[in-house]
């Protein structure tokens, strides 16, 4: 096996070449996991809200990524490719749940906000819980683009590659999402 020093932070192009070589693939993938797992975890967590579900989805996403390494041609950043897999896994999970609350102040008592307040791994106050409920009430694309823009400050071009949606559609979705969340909070002002 060739002598390769796997440092903690690795250049994207270098990692792409290392995963193509069967002799260094496994070590390179481990470096990718170490480098990007936390960022991906939070992308998933903000979508699915609970730690246990997020952990399961993240691990499944990396297993899928490993299985599809041969089909990754390096035409996008590694994190963009991984985000696409992880977010699609999360969205598939949410579709299966089919338990979306409506964006209504009347549903506060039984909604996601109360579930979050009871969650051991949620540290926010009631307003933050309500915000999460407002976000969770959005349609899929609006919710995802809002989270990736608001929390990850991801560019529309990157989100477009991640979701396979045009930048124009994403900008429109983000605009609508911001308006809805603003209106939701103004009801409590």
């Amino acid at each position, binding site marked *: 096996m060739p002598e390769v020093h796997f440092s903690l932070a690795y250049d994207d192009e270098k990692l792409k070449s290392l995963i193509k070589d*069967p002799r260094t*693939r*496994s070590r390179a*993938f*481990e470096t990718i*996991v*170490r480098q990007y*797992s*936390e960022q991906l*975890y*939070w992308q998933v*967590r*903000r979508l699915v*809200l609970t*730690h246990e579900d997020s*952990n399961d989805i*993240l*691990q499944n996403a*990396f*297993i899928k990524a*490993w299985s599809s390494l041969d089909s990754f041609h390096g035409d996008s950043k590694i994190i963009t490719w991984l985000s696409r897999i992880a977010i699609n896994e999360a969205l598939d999970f949410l579709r299966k749940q089919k338990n979306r609350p409506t964006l209504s102040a009347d549903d506060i008592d039984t909604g996601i906000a109360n579930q*979050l307040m009871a969650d051991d*791994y*949620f*540290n*926010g*106050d009631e*307003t*933050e*819980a309500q*915000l*999460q409920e407002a976000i969770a009430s959005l349609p899929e694309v609006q919710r995802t683009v809002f989270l990736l823009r*608001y*929390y990850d400050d991801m560019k529309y071009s990157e989100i477009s590659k991640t979701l396979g949606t045009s930048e124009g559609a994403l900008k429109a979705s983000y*605009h609508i999402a*911001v*308006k809805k*969340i*603003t209106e939701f*909070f103004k009801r409590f002002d």
Partner: protein
Amino acid sequence: MINEENYIRSKMGNKNPFTVPEGYFEQLTGDIMSKIPAPAQKEQKPAFIKRLRPLLYAAACVCIAMFGVVVYQNLDKQSNDTLNASISHNAAEYNDKFIDDAADYAMFDNDEIYASLLAEI
């Protein structure tokens, strides 16, 4: 839209209300890698000379066989030549002896044999 974004940020900032179990990220990589299937050991293509070896063995056998055939044929020819030579010599000896015996039996002497041969001409 910028005003609305600012409004949301003023309400929420970028504070992360979610938490994880202690040490979760430290062991996450190990957990994930333990679930990754081991890469299948592909059969390594043998070195060129190793792949060529059976052909070389076959070629060597053919050469040895051909050499053996050539040697055998040469030996056979030699023994045939020797045999032919000995047969010819024996035949010649046998013929001469036969004629002498026949001449003795017929009580011909050499002059009479010559005379009879000349008469035939």
